[in-house]
């Protein structure tokens, strides 16, 4: 069964600093996709970044990047130059390529300290 684990329920970072959120997953599949979603206090869940498992290159979106370690089944999110607007719940998610549904972790609440 697929499971996604986020071991850090809460994290904090100083504004302008860098923070890394951890995510591990368990799967027996080789072809899958990984996602980080952000849920700000307004509650609209938005996609931050996504990664195809077959790609060795780590995905990057502006200040957001991932460290994808397929053998270790690890998918961490790095936020550089943190901003107050980055404060949110962050969810890691997994989807097998042959399925439509996502499996989510339990989330990490990120606080940005001015």
């Amino acid at each position, binding site marked *: 069964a697929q499971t*996604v684990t*986020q071991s850090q*329920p809460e994290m904090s970072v100083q504004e302008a600093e860098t923070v890394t959120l951890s995510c591990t997953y368990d799967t027996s599949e080789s*072809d899958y*996709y990984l*996602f980080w*979603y952000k849920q700000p206090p*307004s*509650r*609209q*869940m*938005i*996609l931050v970044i*996504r990664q*195809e498992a077959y790609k060795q290159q780590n995905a990057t979106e502006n200040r957001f990047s991932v460290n994808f370690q397929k053998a270790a089944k690890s998918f961490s999110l790095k936020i550089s130059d943190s901003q107050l607007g980055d404060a949110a719940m962050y*969810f890691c998610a997994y*989807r097998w*390529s042959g399925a*439509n*549904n*996502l499996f*989510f*972790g*339990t*989330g990490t609440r990120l606080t940005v300290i001015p």
Partner: protein
Amino acid sequence: DVKVTQSSRYLVKRTGEKVFLECVQDMDHENMFWYRQDPGLGLRLIYFSYDVKMKEKGDIPEGYSVSREKKERFSLILESASTNQTSMYLCASSPLGGGGILKTQYFGPGTRLLVL
């Protein structure tokens, strides 16, 4: 931009009431999903639908049913609401085809349901 809307942001119902939560998407997506979000548990899939009148059970379908009569609309029904169904409910949609990574899910703003 994909837009997914949900009929209510906040809802208060009494135990035993029948509750309808509605979700509408405007991007002609084939797939639609209903999740429940609880602190410490993340998001858990209740039901999803990949076409009109088609549905699949997710991880926690007990106590819920769904209806999809039109492609853009997906309803979640609580036949007889109970206090343990107090939660945040999130709807999402995604396209069916176009390659694996393009099946990214887009979420609505959520409905916070309180059952008294």
